[in-house]
């Protein structure tokens, strides 16, 4: 039997087709399931992180300006936080579109706008490897 003959016989052979189909479909299903298993807890973690940032934002809105107090409150409000998760509070002022000093008037004699930003950073390890997660909220305080 020639090689061509053997190949055409193999191509015409319909036995085992179901096994081949299964082999094609199974990896796709496995990827879908792994995706669900990975992203559901990740989404939950992102939501909890955002709530911590929101809590900090609400605190700032009541007039609190101490960055340490804001940071501590956001950390307290973070459910399921791990030690490597962090909160950073940054404060700055702006005149028009440019950043300016908080203690002197702007060039047009207006009071510079003041901002407080709460940023959260976290990591999530899933099937897709380590992913960086972040959330932030900026509150204008003046």
């Amino acid at each position, binding site marked *: 039997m020639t090689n061509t003959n053997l190949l055409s016989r193999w191509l015409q052979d319909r036995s085992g087709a179901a096994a081949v189909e299964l082999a094609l479909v199974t990896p796709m299903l496995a990827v879908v399931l792994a995706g669900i298993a990975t992203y559901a807890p990740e989404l939950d973690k992102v939501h909890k992180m955002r*709530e911590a940032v929101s809590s900090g934002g*609400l*605190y700032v809105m009541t007039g609190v300006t101490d960055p340490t107090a804001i940071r501590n*409150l956001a950390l307290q*409000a973070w*459910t399921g936080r791990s030690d490597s998760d962090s909160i950073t509070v940054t404060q700055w002022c702006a005149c028009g579109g440019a950043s300016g000093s908080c203690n002197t008037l702007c060039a047009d004699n207006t009071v510079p706008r003041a901002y407080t930003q709460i940023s959260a950073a976290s990591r999530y390890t899933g099937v897709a490897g380590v992913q960086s997660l972040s959330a932030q909220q900026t509150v204008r305080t003046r």
Partner: protein
Amino acid sequence: MSPLRHGRRFLADRAGGAAVEAALALPIAFVFILGIFQLGWGIFLGSDVRHAIERAARAYIVTPTTTDQAFQSAVAANLMAAKINDVTLTISKSTSSGTQLARIAWTYRYTLQIPFVAPVVLNFDSQIIAPVRSP
């Protein structure tokens, strides 16, 4: 024709094979599709509860005299589809640097109802801290 030959002929008959395969595969496919629908709906309900609580928490800032009872009613009113009975709210008050704080810890349970599959319970939980402005 003897019953034995009848059975052999039936087993050797390849007609309708696709229909038999479909009958085997469709229930599994339905379970998958309904499972994905249910999971998506469950995640939506979890977000619904989260959003309702975040919105209601603002009442503590805007109206400092808000009672915990009024807060719970506001959460119930904000819910779009989730049932308030499945939500557990624990409100604790404390004071930090002169500001009164309301810590709202919550849990929400939703049971996925998927045909042929044992009930799967989704548990959501988180907390938010709202400052209570002094009246």
